[in-house]
């Protein structure tokens, strides 16, 4: 019970701090890759606190509603993760947030927000099957969708699920909105949709979305960590290397289009996942 409470506490409070820190490190590393100096690592926290202090300005009250639902769902999914719950359930709860974020953006009459939201839906469309396949792979190895079952494994999942891990990394890149998949909204400026589906979220509501994003980052990196959950060193190494590669890829690719994503990532990711599943079946 006490362990559960601690886990909930970690999920609610520590996770966003971690997510913010990751975002800060990300920005710092990106700057280094670009031969820049970069902002301090706690910059994301300044951003969010500043946003909370800004004037409330809305286009539409649905936006406010949706931002709150988003952060609730994002938080809940992380809590469920730390409670070592069912993977599919976590995904579905996470999807509640993602979908409400999109619905909020769609509820405005702003064309950029609308286009961004549509693109975000395409991103959801692309990453969700990949994540589900990864979970199915985990199930085939452990015999359960529960995270608690994964943690009792003695062999890292990565050994039996290498291709699915790559597929999951695709999903991770899409979810983090890193280049080449940063087309629904972008961390960098100079995007054809300005800020995509985040265009109309402003001030405190943008801050909520930002925190929600941190939760999601923690969640998805947590999912990655499951692939080497047998030791702490494994977790840190795997997540570290994965995230480093994400930043690297972000910096060595151009932004591509959603048509390309559907035509390339989908077949590639699904095929890799499928091959991996067949191979598990064959064992």
């Amino acid at each position: 019970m006490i362990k559960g409470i601690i886990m909930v506490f970690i999920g609610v409070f520590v996770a966003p701090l971690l997510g913010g820190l990751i975002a800060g490190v990300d920005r710092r590393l990106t700057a280094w890759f670009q031969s820049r100096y970069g902002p301090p690592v706690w910059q994301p926290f300044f951003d969010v606190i500043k946003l909370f202090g800004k004037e409330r300005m809305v286009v539409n009250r649905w936006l406010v509603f949706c931002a709150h639902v988003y952060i609730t769902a994002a938080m809940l999914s992380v809590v469920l993760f730390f409670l070592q719950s069912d993977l599919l359930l976590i995904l579905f709860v996470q999807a509640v947030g993602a979908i409400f974020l999109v619905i909020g953006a769609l509820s405005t009459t702003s064309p950029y927000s609308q286009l961004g939201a549509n693109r975000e839906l395409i991103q959801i469309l692309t990453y969700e099957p990949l994540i589900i396949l990864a979970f199915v792979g985990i199930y085939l190895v452990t015999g359960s969708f529960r995270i608690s079952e994964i943690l009792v494994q003695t062999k890292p999942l990565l050994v039996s699920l290498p291709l699915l891990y790559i597929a999951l990394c695709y999903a991770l890149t899409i979810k983090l909105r890193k280049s080449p998949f940063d087309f629904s909204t972008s961390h960098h400026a100079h995007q054809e949709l300005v800020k995509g589906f985040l265009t109309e979220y402003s001030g405190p509501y943008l801050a909520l979305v930002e925190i929600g994003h941190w939760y999601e980052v923690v969640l998805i990196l947590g999912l990655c960590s499951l692939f080497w959950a047998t030791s702490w060193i494994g977790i840190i190494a795997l997540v570290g290397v994965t995230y480093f590669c994400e930043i690297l890829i972000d910096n060595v690719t151009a932004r591509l289009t959603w048509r390309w994503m559907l035509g390339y990532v989908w077949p590639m990711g699904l095929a890799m996942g499928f091959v991996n599943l067949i191979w598990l079946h064959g064992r």
Partner: protein
Amino acid sequence: MLNTILFVLILGPFIAGALCFIIRSGHVRSFIVLAMGCLIATASIILFIKGPFSHTPPPLLGIPTHFLVLWGDDLLLFVMLYFAFKHGHLFTKILIIFQIVCLDYFELFMVDHTENFPLFFADNLSLIMVLIISIVGSLICVFAIPYMNKHEEHQGLKKSRQPKFFAFLVVIIGAMNGLVLSNNIIFMYMFFEITTLGSFMLISHDQNETAINNAVRALWMNCVAGAAFIIAMIWAYVIQGTVDAQKLIQAGHMGGIMLTPLALLCFAAMVKAAQIPFQSWLLGAMVAPTPTSALLHSSTMVKAGVYIALRFAPGYAGTFLSQSLAVSGAFAFLATSAMAIRESNGKKVLAYSTIGNLGLIFACAGINTPEAITAGILLIIFHAFSKALLFLCVGDIEQHIGSRDIEVMRGLYARMPRTTLIAVLGIVTMMLPPFGVLLSKWMAIEAASKHLFVILPLAVGSAMMVVYWARWAGILLSAPHGLKVEPEKQGLLTRFPLLVLVWGAVVLSLCAPLVYSKLVVPILSAPSFSIRAGIFENPTGTFLFYPVMLILALGFIYAVYAAKKARKARLSGPYLCGAQTTDPESFEGPMKKPVAVLSGAIYFESIFGNQKLTVWVNIFGGMLLALLVGGSL
């Protein structure tokens, strides 16, 4: 008591239909429909409380029941034949004549009418079906009363065709009740055919060219199902010498001998449920007035198909048939989701989603584990409510704005906030946790995890499903900023069914653990989940139903509060690159002309859009069906 209830449930609607047809007064008709609705809803609840039974009612008016069935069937088939001749459709004629010949031969020369077995049998599955059919069906009928008045107003008809419409609307309900309660498969077949005729009449209601074409298409496709059914029936009788459905199921596939009739039954069921490549009849049914589509999609007709598949599921467990049923169901789920994603016609989206969900139920029946069957049954329940609700909403919206196009529904919240909110809630119950549909989808995915060719389409299809639902919900909610929203007027007979359905969808979802443990568990060979404090659990996974629901509900409430509080926030127009004019929703375009911004969703025209996709999907679906039937020969 049981006799009376059965009479009310099965023959009541027929009588009400006949009355509707004969008495041409609008008020009396409304009264009859309302009264019938109340009656069968009550009767179904009483029947439900009484619990499972097997029963043979005394012969009606002293005539042996099998005579009644024979006459009824022949009458039915000849009526259908008349329509086939009227519309000059050769294939239908052949099919119907084939059915008449087979049926008469079978009934007159083959069947031993002295065989003693209960004519009616109900376990929890049947009872659930009866509940859904009676309650959801009645609500749809009630909704149809004001709807049809307005519909005819729009059409400017001189002579009302409502009597016939309502007659068949209620008859279908009776037939469905009969179908799910029958234990004699000849009965089943008869009710099966009544729904065919009923749907034909309802689809052709508007009597214009498309309506008739689509109705004829529905007729011939369903006749294919009927023909398959009758062959299966005869074949099964030849092998087992009984028309008792329970005996047939218990006998199982008998080492593969019984597999072909079962496959044919499944085939009939899949055609009835408009699975690929027979989806076009259900899509064509969209031309009919909305209550028709609502009825066909949510509680009756197509549900007859999945009911049969689920009913006979124990019979083919663990066979190749089961596997291929799962695969073709999953494929239908994937393909219809892909087709729905490029549709901007609201009713078509609903239709594709129906077919997809039915495909999912078939997949569950095919997987044939307790978990999967649970998922299938729960899906039937939750899907019926949400889908009926959505159809009625779309119907209401269509009558207000004159279009069923999703793009035209942009900004609907500003015009019809009530209906919009109900529709959005309906959509949310269709796709998001912790509502029932998603709960059953979770069960389905967990159950399908071992089946590679099932899980892949399920994974991709459910993602696509999310896309088109979310897109629609967002579009419905989009509203110009700063507009005061006035709730629109809704007639009592419109609002009542909507409210009952929306509450039904939500409350039923809330009670999902109860529904599961009280209704579903008794049907299963072994309980698939253990429930503790609202947590579904089995070795495969855990669904923290109530905890998740509680926290999400709290989040929702807080979000509503925050949105209310945001009333004080400054309103600002959307970002238009700084080019907005005094109207925040339009920008100053070239030549200084104000241009209103217009947003259209992405419909993937270049990816899912071409007709080729449909052709390939049909070919592949057809191949899967051929595999299903052929593989069991």
